[in-house]
């Protein structure tokens, strides 16, 4: 049996308004002649009505919207306080760290000043490169790209490519 003319599939298409007017009319005649088809239509309509009551159940939490906006960088301004909070916690960590770490880190006056008065930059993320420098990013998307870049650099440093071969491309 081909699927296209199975009346018990077509009855769903009929209830969903997927049949063109001519076919819908023809199908109505078919249902009038077949009580089993008519009964199936009634059940489908009943089910669809029952499901309309489920609709308003799911609203996205406001937190999700801001999570998404932050992830793609639509909310950089709102992200600022996070930066100053981060700077404050860095400052706190420096104060709380032991004498040993203190001497290793050897914070100069400039470092303390920087921690107390963060520069007015939009960066929220950073990742260390193999050479000790950092890539700063304002958005999560840029940060992900930076991570890929660092991984690529690290791979390249670990296994030098034979001449003529392209370096491995990052996934994505």
């Amino acid at each position, binding site marked *: *049996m081909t*699927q*296209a003319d*199975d009346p*018990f*599939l077509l009855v*769903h*298409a009929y209830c*969903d308004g*997927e049949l063109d007017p001519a076919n819908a009319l023809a199908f109505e005649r078919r249902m009038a002649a077949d*009580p*089993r088809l*008519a*009964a*199936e239509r*009634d*059940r*489908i*309509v*009943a*089910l*669809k*009505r*029952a*499901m309309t*009551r*489920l*609709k308003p*159940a*799911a*609203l*996205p*939490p406001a*937190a*999700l*919207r801001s*999570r*998404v*906006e932050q*992830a*793609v*960088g*639509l909310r950089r301004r709102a992200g600022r306080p996070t930066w100053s909070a981060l700077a404050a916690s860095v400052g706190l960590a420096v104060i709380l760290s032991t004498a040993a770490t203190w001497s290793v880190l050897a914070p100069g006056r400039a470092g303390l000043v920087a921690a107390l008065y963060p520069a007015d930059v939009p960066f929220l993320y950073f990742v260390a490169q193999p050479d000790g420098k950092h890539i700063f990013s304002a958005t*999560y*998307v840029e940060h*992900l790209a930076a991570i890929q870049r660092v991984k690529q650099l690290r791979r390249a440093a670990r296994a030098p490519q034979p001449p003529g071969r392209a370096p491995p491309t990052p996934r*994505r």
Partner: protein
Amino acid sequence: MNDERTRFANVVLPHLGDAYALARWLARNDSDAEDIVQEACLRAFRGIAGFGDVNARAWLLSIVRNTAFTWLKKHRDPRLVAVENIELVEATGPERDEGPFAGPSSPEASLIERADAARLEAAIGALPEEFRETLVLRDLQGLDYRAIAEVTGVPIGTVMSRLARARRRLMAQLGKDTE
């Protein structure tokens, strides 16, 4: 850069509610749904240049749907019905026993119609993944068959049979009297 963000705000954000609703139905868990939506939005953002201004909602929903499936596969294998199993279920041909086709309809239809939301939600949740997503896209998101076929990547005939079988299972279950 800013162009992409503006575009994202115009194309994706208006459909965040639908994206979340679909993710919730697929994941059956609110916090998983949020993670899925965030991941899907990142994918949408990266792919926004390739979006052709056709049907933003269907476009986003297909990303959510694909994200949900990879996400669920990664994070919880056991509860996921493997696609191969679904194909097997689908290959067994028409299952007339999934719903009674003969007999008086009106008392049964009214039982179905009066089914309370919690029972209906549980019944939808118990459907195999592919049947559930088809049903949710049609009856809760209001997509037409062509859009569902595009979102789920199957022919319209498969959409029709999945929808029919999803509904038959629900009707059979809800048409029974509660014990």
